């Protein structure tokens, strides 16, 4: 005998019978909206409102503590003619692209290792999560010391190991400063990839690997034709989240270089903060922050479409 799905929803109240609060709460439609309401209200207040207010601000010439004047897209036109804006755009894309690649490959490797059985596995898993758990402001202070030319442990090791004769200027040299930030961001963000991908790996049935082994698949083939296809959706979701967070990265860069030397490490978020808060140009600051929106939108829409097709 076929068994149909059990509905937990109460039937709609019979006409004429009084509607009680309890009866109303028992209705699935009402209850589910009630459960969703706090989340929706939170999102409206702290995400939707600032977002739309940001768009509105970007269309104004709005200096701090003064009423704004509607200027349409003038702020964006000004930015388009500003060489620093294009430098900041380049820096942001370089920073996001490279850190994403490193975090993705490193995180995948980390997850594959953590998925093996070895002694002290739990301890290693906890230790690998540390960079993600420690507050960024604190870990950045540690990195300030690590990258300090004089007190740097990296320089000390390189010099005493005979690799170099004098220490590198990790934050003073324009190229090295960007690479230093990429390394620190990768260090901080890799555990997020690692732990999420590990969760994905643990959903793979051992039967699949056994079947592949019987068919004579090598380790690389098992990874390419079993592991990767199964964790692909998780991989895409985690990459999407990471790209969004990295685009908005602020604390790390602000604390380590403040966008210097000579704007070599300024990204959208740090530049927007300087323009909005330090210069008091709230409209222009909002325009800079919004400049990252098209790229993010394309990425999110593209990845979502891809996921749905899959």
């Amino acid at each position: 005998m076929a068994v149909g799905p059990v509905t937990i929803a109460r039937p709609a109240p019979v006409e004429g019978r009084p509607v009680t609060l309890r009866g109303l709460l028992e209705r699935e439609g009402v209850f589910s909206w009630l459960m969703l309401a706090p989340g929706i209200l939170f999102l409206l207040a702290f995400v939707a409102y600032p977002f739309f207010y940001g768009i509105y601000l970007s269309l104004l010439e709005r200096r701090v503590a003064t009423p704004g004047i509607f200027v349409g897209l003038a702020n964006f036109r000004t930015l388009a003619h500003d060489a620093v804006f294009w430098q900041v755009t380049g820096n942001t894309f370089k920073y996001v692209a490279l850190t994403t690649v490193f975090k993705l490959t490193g995180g995948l490797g980390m997850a594959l290792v953590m998925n093996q059985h070895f002694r002290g596995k739990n301890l290693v898993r906890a230790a690998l999560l540390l960079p993600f758990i420690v507050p960024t402001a604190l870990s950045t202070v540690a990195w300030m010391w690590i990258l300090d030319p004089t007190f740097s442990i990296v320089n000390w090791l390189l010099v005493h190991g005979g690799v170099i004769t004098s220490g590198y200027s990790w934050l003073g040299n324009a190229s090295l400063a960007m690479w230093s930030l990429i390394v620190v961001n990768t260090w901080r963000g890799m555990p997020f990839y690692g732990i999420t991908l590990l969760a994905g790996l643990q959903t793979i049935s051992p039967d699949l690997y056994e079947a592949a082994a019987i068919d004579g698949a090598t380790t690389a083939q098992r990874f390419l034709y079993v592991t990767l296809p199964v964790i692909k959706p998780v991989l895409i979701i985690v990459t999407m989240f990471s790209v969004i967070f990295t685009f908005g990265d602020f604390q790390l860069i602000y604390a380590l270089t403040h966008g210097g030397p000579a704007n070599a490490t300024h990204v959208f978020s740090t530049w927007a903060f300087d323009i909005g808060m330090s210069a008091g140009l709230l409209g222009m600051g909002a325009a800079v922050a919004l400049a990252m929106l098209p790229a993010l939108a394309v990425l999110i829409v593209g990845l979502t479409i891809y996921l749905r097709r899959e």
Partner: protein
Amino acid sequence: MTTRREFLTVSLAATSAALAPRLAGAAGKATTKTLTTVRESSFIKAFDDFFVKTLAPEYEKLTGIKVGYEAVSVGGMLTRLTTMAETKSGPEITGTGLNWPYLFDNVLVDVSDVAGEVGKKLGGWHEIVQDVVVVNKKWKAIPWGNIGQLEVYRTDWFKEVGVTKFPETWEDLLAAGRLLKKKGHPFGFEIGHGFGDNHGWMYPLLWSYGGREVDKDGKTVLIDSSETAKAVDFCRKFYQETMFEDVLGWTDVNNNKAFLGEQISCTNNASSILVVAKRDFPEIGKVTDHALNPQGPKGRYHLLNAQSLALLSYAPDQAAAKAFLRWLYDDKQMSRWLAAGDAYYAPFLHGYDNHPMWQPEPRYMPFKESLKTSRPHTWPGPQGTAASESVAKYVLVDMFAKACRGDSTKDVIATAAAQLKQIYKAK
């Protein structure tokens, strides 16, 4: 056990008690019982402590008004003030620095009456400070002192290379720096994106060579000049021959750390290095001294950073807040407060030119002398949002920084000129 009725009675009573002052305030019947000031926390802890532990209790005893103090970490005050101005809520009295009275003109109360009285009683105000606190002929903030940016150097290492008196000119400082770098004691002047120690020597350097960002009219960009080129050329040489690459990425903490870590022999900073050295590194403290910025072909300059208190227009009882400012800036209070600050703040009142606060430590005296030649950022241009934009975008700092890393003088000046023309909407 508490019954529901008892719980409700207690809750209602507590709520009523909590809301009573607000409701009475809204009806305009309450007398002010509290005032709050917000300031960037002072580098001199005793200065803040004196306010909290001595001045505030004294005022409460005198008037019944409790004065609170909210400390904001160094570098964070502008963000806090922006939030207060935008939300029109927060402390009634705020600390200001640089050109902020211009930025927040719309939300600051005219305190010309208080400033006038204070000036009359205490020998008059230094003229230069009015450039940053008097907006459209109205005092929008009342200064208590300047945080000067001067040369901080190691006397023992300078003596080692035969320099017994701090060099008078930039060229002489360069010559001394060459010798010191050879001896393993390079200079370390911040050229990165900090908020004070970079501008602290770069604007004075530009001005001392005759260069200017913009003219008084705020419309004529002057940066593209032979004077600027000379300053840029000097800066490149100064960096290459006396410093090391890392200074290009330094923020404000780095030079303090490097000086106290005995890595550099000279930098530009406030007196905080000596303060910390005397407290934590007494041996370094003994061989550390201050000097005025060197002269260039067109004079000697310093950067103005007037620390002031201002009154927010949303304050519910402005009269009470003004009365507090009047009391605070009275000699009986202000004199003791400044003394607690260990001469970290150079007062702008002529009545304090020979204040006893200068006696205990003669090495702070150059900070007093520097007031005569101090100018605000972007001087002689007008102090306003364009000036803030230029500073926030590090136009001048990056011009020098790019030259130091090897870009041509012509290119770096052209870039700065283009940026300034956009900022000042000049043709």
